[in-house]
C-alpha cells in the first residue's frame, strides 16, 4: 500500500509491503528491508535492518505521530493518505498561516502574553510566557495566524491544556 509521510519537513511517497515479519519499504526510489517484531508494553517494535538492532516506539502526539528511537530520541512523523495530498494540491499550494489554539502545556502561572490581539504571528514566534517548575518558559506558535483576544488574565494560574490564545488562519 502507498501513503505519504512527512518527516523533518520533507514529504515523501512511501510504498509498504510486509510478509510475516519482514517489512519492505520503497521511498525516493530506495528500498528499505527490515525484520520486525512487536514487543509488549505499548506500540513498540524491535527492528533488524541489515542485522542492526533498533528499538522503536510509536505514539500519537500532539501533531501526528511521535516515533521514539532507541528509547530516547523522539521524531515527529505524519502519515497521510494520498487522497489528502491531492486535496491539498487542489486547494492550491500556498497555505499561508494555518491558525491554531495555544494551550497551556502544564499547570502554572501565565506570566505574560508576548503578542496583542490583531498581531500577525508567524510560525515559531513566541506568544506567551508561562512559569512552571520554578522556571519561565516561552510558548511558541507552530502554524501561526492572527492573534485573537487573550483568553486568560496575565499573572493568573492556568491548568494543563487550558486555551490561552487563538490564532486565526490567515491565507497567504
Amino acid at each position, binding site marked *: *500500500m502507498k*501513503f505519504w*509521510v512527512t*518527516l*523533518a519537513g520533507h514529504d515523501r511517497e*512511501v510504498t509498504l509491503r*510486509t510478509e510475516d515479519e519482514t*517489512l519492505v*519499504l520503497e*521511498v525516493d526510489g530506495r528500498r*528499505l528491508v*527490515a525484520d*520486525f517484531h512487536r514487543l509488549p*508494553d505499548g*506500540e*513498540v517494535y524491535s*527492528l533488524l*535492518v541489515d542485522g542492526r538492532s*533498533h*528499538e522503536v*516506539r*510509536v*505514539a500519537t502526539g*500532539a*501533531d*501526528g505521530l511521535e*516515533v*521514539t*528511537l*532507541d*528509547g*530516547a*530520541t*523522539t*521524531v515527529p512523523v*505524519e*502519515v*497521510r*493518505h494520498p*487522497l*489528502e495530498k491531492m*486535496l491539498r494540491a*487542489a486547494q492550491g499550494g500556498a497555505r499561508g498561516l494555518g491558525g491554531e*489554539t*495555544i*494551550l497551556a*502545556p*502544564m499547570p*502554572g502561572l501565565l506570566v505574560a502574553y508576548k503578542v496583542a490581539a490583531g498581531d500577525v504571528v508567524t510560525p515559531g514566534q513566541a506568544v506567551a510566557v508561562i512559569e*512552571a*517548575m*520554578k*522556571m519561565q*518558559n*516561552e*510558548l*511558541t506558535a*507552530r502554524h501561526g495566524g492572527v492573534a485573537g483576544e487573550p483568553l486568560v488574565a496575565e499573572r493568573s494560574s492556568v491548568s*494543563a*491544556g487550558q486555551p490561552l490564545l487563538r490564532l486565526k488562519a490567515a491565507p497567504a
Partner: protein
Amino acid sequence: MKPIRRVLIANRGEIAVRIARTLRERDVTSIAVFSEPDRASLHVLLADEAYPIGPGPSRDSYLNLERVLETAKRVRADAVHPGYGFFAENPVFAKACAEAGLAFIGPKPETIAALGDKLAARAAAERAGVPIIPGSPGPVATLGEARDVAKRIGFPLMLKAAAGGGGKGMRVVRSDAELSAAWDVTRGEAGAAFGDDRVFVERAIERPRHVEAQILADSSGRVAFLGERECSVQRRHQKLLEETPSPAFDAKTRAAFGDAACRIAKAVGYLSAGTVEFILDEEGRFYFLEVNTRLQVEHPVTEMVTGLDLVAEQLAIAEGAPLSFGDTPPVPRGASMEARIIAEDPAANFMPSVGRVERVRFPQGPGVRNDAGIYRGYQVPVFYDSLLSKLVVWGEDREHARRRMLRALGEFVLEGLHHNVAFHRWLVAHEAFAAGNLSTRFLDEHFKPEMLAPDATAGEIALLAAALHAREQSLEVSLPGGNGVERSPWRWSDRRRAGGRTRA
C-alpha cells in the same frame, strides 16, 4: 547521644528513596512524608512508613514546618533527614527540630545560618586563609562605591546578591556603562527575590570550572576531605553532569584544595557532611565560592570511588559516633560520573516537561548505579524539581567511566515525556568533554539544539516505524471529496491536532 531508631525523611522522590535505602541497610525505620499528588511516589512505596502532610504546593506540605514537625513527633521519629532542597539549609527548621527533641541529621543550626550568608561565608574563608575572588570586602552601598571597586580590580565584574546562590541574583558587567545600567536592577531583583537587597562586587572569572570538595566532620572535631567533584557542565546555573576526580586537578592541586576546604570547615566548627564549592580559573587557581551545608545531588560519585555511604556517615555523626574510617579516609579508586536525568526538553531551551512514564527500562550491568525516583506508569507531578533519576557510573579511569556512561545512556529507555537522555548522549560523546576541556560555559560554547536532531539512519528507522504503525491502524475514515467511506490504515494528519506545543 541516644541511638537513632526512627528517621523521618523530610523530602520526596529520588533523594528520599536514596536515604530510605541506607536506613533500611542500617536497620533504622524509614518514615516518609508525602503531599497529595505524591501518594504514589516511589519514596512512599519504598519507605517502611509513610504519612500525608498536605496539598501539592511545597509551601503547603514539604515546606510546612509545623506540619512536618507535628508529624515527626506524632509518629515518634527521633531524627529528621532533610535531604537536599526544602528544609535542607534552613537554620530555623534545624533549630525547631532540636527544640522538638529531634536530632537534625546535618550541621548545627548556627553553622547553617552563618554559611547561608554569602558575605559571612566569604569572611570566614578569608579568615581561614582560603583564596577568595578579589572584590568588595562587604556589601556595596552605592554605585559610586561599586565603581571604586571596579577601578581597583578591573572588569569584567560580577554583581552578586548577598542572599543569592545557585546562580540566582548574579549579573556580569563588562564595562563602566554596563555597571551603571545594571546597578539598580540587580539591587531591586535581590530585594524582590531574597528580601535582602545587599549586593557585593567581585571579579568575574571567564570560562570558570566549578569544582567542589566533599567534607565530613564528626562531633569530635575530626574533619575529612573525601576528594573533589567537578560540576562544570551546567545549564541555567544548574548542574547537569558531575564527575570525580576533576580532569583539571593534579595531586598537588588536590592536596591544597582539600586542605583549604578542611580549614574552612574547622574554622566554622562544621558538623556532618558538607560541600565547599570553589571556582577554578583557566590558570588552575581556585577561589572559594560557598559552602553547601547538606548532602549534594552529586554525592554518589564520591561514594563510587571511596566505597563510603555518605548518608550512613551522616547518621553515625548525628548519633555522636566518629567517622567510620577514623583519621584515614579511604583512598579513592578509579573515576565516577553522574548524569542528571531530568524531565525537560533540551531542544526547546530545556523547558520542563510533565507527563506519565509510559515505558522505562533502566541501564544495568557492571559499574552502573541508577537512583531513580520514577517507575513505569508514574505521573511526574508539576509541583517539584524535575529530576527523575541520577545515572552514575564507575570506571577504572575517566575514559573508562566516560565510555561506560555512554553505554549506559545508550541502554536507557524512557518514554512518555521529554527528558535529556539524548542530550547526555551528545554531551558525553563530545570531543571537548572527552578531552576534559570543561567550563560552566560548555553549553554556550558547544551546544545547539539542532545537534540533537536525528540523523539519516534515524530518519529511515522512524520511517519504518511509521509504516508499521500505519499498517496496524485501520480506522474507518470518510474522505471528504474522496470516494466515500473506505478502510484506511491511517488517520488524517489534522485529526487530533491539539495545537500549540503541548509538552505534557
